[in-house]
């Protein structure tokens, strides 16, 4: 299942890239994100609960960053297990381009879903993936454009991680990991 889109974020490229690599920001931006934990430079564990109508599927998974070129683009591979719902594996290529003071973010997502999710029918999963991605970028937009996140805060966060860290390697999970969860349960 393939998903392509682009969105304008109200902040400059460097800020957006850092935000996308900052677990604290991501925790607020990812819909239903319960926990994010950095396990190594390029790896994160996350628990995300996807709520679709009455259904709640708790996804436990990991994400790995690769081909990261600050501040223009990077690739993230996320795998999550949803218990009886099955699993979702997502590979997202994200690229950021200047657009005046804002940033145009384009993403291409290739999602493989398994077990009951797959039986859901690609179309329903596609629909949900689209919805969750838009929600993520709306949250991100509000977080970045609202001055609640002054420049200083982001510095502080990054300092605590490891002063010598090369920004490019800092891991991040995008909401796209959450992509692909919907229950198909048929109604009669």
């Amino acid at each position, binding site marked *: 299942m393939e998903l392509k889109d682009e969105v304008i974020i109200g902040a400059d490229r460097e800020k957006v890239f850092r935000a996308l690599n900052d677990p604290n920001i991501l925790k607020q931006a990812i819909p239903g994100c319960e926990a994010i934990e950095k396990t190594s430079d390029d790896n994160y564990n996350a628990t995300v609960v996807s709520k679709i109508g009455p259904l709640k599927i708790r996804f436990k998974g990991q994400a790995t960053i690769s081909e990261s070129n600050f501040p223009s683009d990077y690739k993230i591979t996320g795998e999550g*297990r949803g*218990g*009886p719902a*099955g*699993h979702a*594996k997502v590979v997202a290529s994200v690229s950021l381009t200047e657009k005046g003071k804002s940033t145009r973010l384009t993403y291409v997502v290739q999602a*493989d*879903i*398994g*077990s009951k999710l*797959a*039986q859901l*029918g*690609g179309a329903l999963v596609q629909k949900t993936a689209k919805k969750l991605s838009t929600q993520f970028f709306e949250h991100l937009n509000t977080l970045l454009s609202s001055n609640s996140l002054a420049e200083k805060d982001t510095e502080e966060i990054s300092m605590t991680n490891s002063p010598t860290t090369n920004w490019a390697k800092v891991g991040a999970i995008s909401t796209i990991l959450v992509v692909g969860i919907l229950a198909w349960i*048929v109604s009669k």
Partner: protein
Amino acid sequence: MSQEHGKDWMGAPLPRKEDRRLLTGKGKYVSDIVIPGALHAVFVRSEYAHAKILSIDTMEAEELEGVERIYVGEQIKHTIKSMPQPIVQPNLPAHYPTFWPLAVDKVTFHGEPVALVIARNKYIAEDAAELVFIDYEELEPVLDPEEALKPDATIIHEKDGTNEIFSMTFTGGDTEESQAENATEVEQIFQNAPVVIKERFKTHRTGITPMEPRAILCDWDDSDGLLAYITTQRPHIDRLALSDILDISAEKVQVIAPRDQGGGFGIKAPFYRENIIIAYAARDLEQPVRWVESRYESLMNVGQERDQINDMEIAADLEGNLLALRNFGLADNGVGTVGVYWGFVMPFLGAIELPNGYKWPKADIRLKVATTNKACLTPSRAFGHFPTRFAIERCIDMVAHKIGMEPSELRRKNLVADLPYTSITNEYYDSGDFVKVWDTLLEKADLTNFRLEQKKALSENKYVGIGFGCGVELSGVASELFVPMENQPGFGAATVRLDPRGKVQVFGGDAPGGQGHETTTAQVVASEFGISPEDVIITTGNTGSTPFGSGSVGARMGSYFISAVAEACRQLKTKITKILAHDLQLEASVEHFEFKNGEVIYLGDDSQRSSFLSIVERIIMFPINMPEGETGGLDVTSFFEAAKPMICFNADCCVVEVSLDTGDFKILKWITAEDVGNVINPLIVNGQMHGAIIQGISNTVFEEFVYDEQGQQLTADFEHYKMATAADVPNININYATTPCPHTPLGTRGIGEGRPSSVPGALTNAVCDALRPLGIEITTLPLRPDAIWQKIQEASH
């Protein structure tokens, strides 16, 4: 059926003895059998089509209160023998994959068993199964049979070094040279033949899922050993396999296939890996263990068959004589990890039966079977030849259309007219009159009148069509074919035991799943002994009390089993009349007596007679003053082996109306003509034909196992794997055109196994006939409105 019906129980539409208990909810299926204290098993199955198993974390699951044990592949790898094992391995050259009951090192299809949770009840077992966390490393799934055979393809069973599990050439003798020579001769015929049809026929993955999923209940006792209730068509084979694999001496293994089984249709014939681990667990835990398969597991693991590509060519002359047949078959075998059949045995037999009932002067028939990351093919009624029969019946229609001949005419012209006959693939057709069956069908179909109606309908912009198909089917499987194919004997075995009250007990080692054995057997025994069917009961499926048999496969009832019953009765009648003649001081033997209305009457002088009851009681209870060399007792086991493999033959005709707007079609009529040999119970024979034809229609139009590009099986419930309901299928008009079988004592034939195979061809031929004005030829199944509509769009632009 009153008592004086006497002799002619044969052919009587007797209501079944089985029915009362089944109609009042008193049937006892494996899932109904209760052994106090039985633990419940739930399998944890792979979510990936092809992946390495990095780790299996069962810690959390094991701590759940009520969980007894959790098994994983790595453990049992050292304590249970791996497959293959000779007892469940054919004598055919193939790359038999190595596997254990639970996946070891890697998983090879979505739904493969990886771990087994055993708990106090099924709810807890399922709760625990959710807490088993398996870490996978995904591998590239191989999902297309053609890709699988390419040199650069990922190899699924690395140790085999190839994804080609099996390949064979079925024509031109046994040596490569003779086969090559034959191939060139066939090529010559194609070069100069005035008419050549060449098409690729594709049949999707579908099969016959019975309403009762699999189940097994095992009990263990240190002295008596293993007792296993199994949903199986082959209890005696399962017993030997469990004994060999679990190293339990055979006399300490008993398998019982309950007399009530919810349908088999082939999928309960293989020896499954789940049975091994459940029996193992019962012994290991020394407690009864019960596994009842969920439909979700069942649809992911069994009932998948057909799934072939057949590149077929037919050469013919302008007068409609078939000159040569060429076919390169490719079957998608799935992973091949199922005992006895390994998947490829079905396409193997499908290729043998490809020539069907036609005379082929020359043929070049080859087959390749490719391993893919899908569930292994399991036997489904019309064993392997549903796809090949679809291909040939469609191809024949195309030849007829090309030379402007009625398809039914072309078939009649080329049907094998004089039997016995050996087909181009060395299949022996022992007896029957194909032409008589065909003429009976044509008489009922009234083709000339239909063509008038068709023309009239077309003028009103209505598209109706008629389609034909036929099928030569196995009537039982002779040892001659069974031994090489499945390393097992083909004989039918039956014990007939009389008791002093004149009642008869019959014992058979096969294991029916609804075919009505209790009634058919009773009718035959009653007819032989001149008593009432009520006095006859039958026990099947219990290896502790029934003679060895290879199981209820390949239409063995009307061919092998009932013949063994008849022969056993006749041996007893010889003994009874010898002793009666002795008592009555008559120089007479069995042919001088008649068994009728509960009496044994001397034909020379009908005052010389005895009641059946008294002579039987005399021989068993008072065996004194016996003729020279005779002892008491009336208990005989007979083994029936036909001189040659036997067949039956059927022909189908259906009429459809197709809507041009949507490609949807309605089956207006379904007419058949059947050579089922002498009929024992017409109600039961008709029921078998109705069921088989509707299964054929449901497989052709509605059912399909679908895998996505990651190898995820998307049709693991009846919402997505759509089976025909009563509202989707027509009534069936069954007609008999029988020729008694000369190679069975009662002239009966085994019927019903292959019966669905002529349905896809007949139905698709009818749709194409309706759309003849648009020149549409359909060569791919499933036959769905969407596909037909698209063909109509292509034809009208």
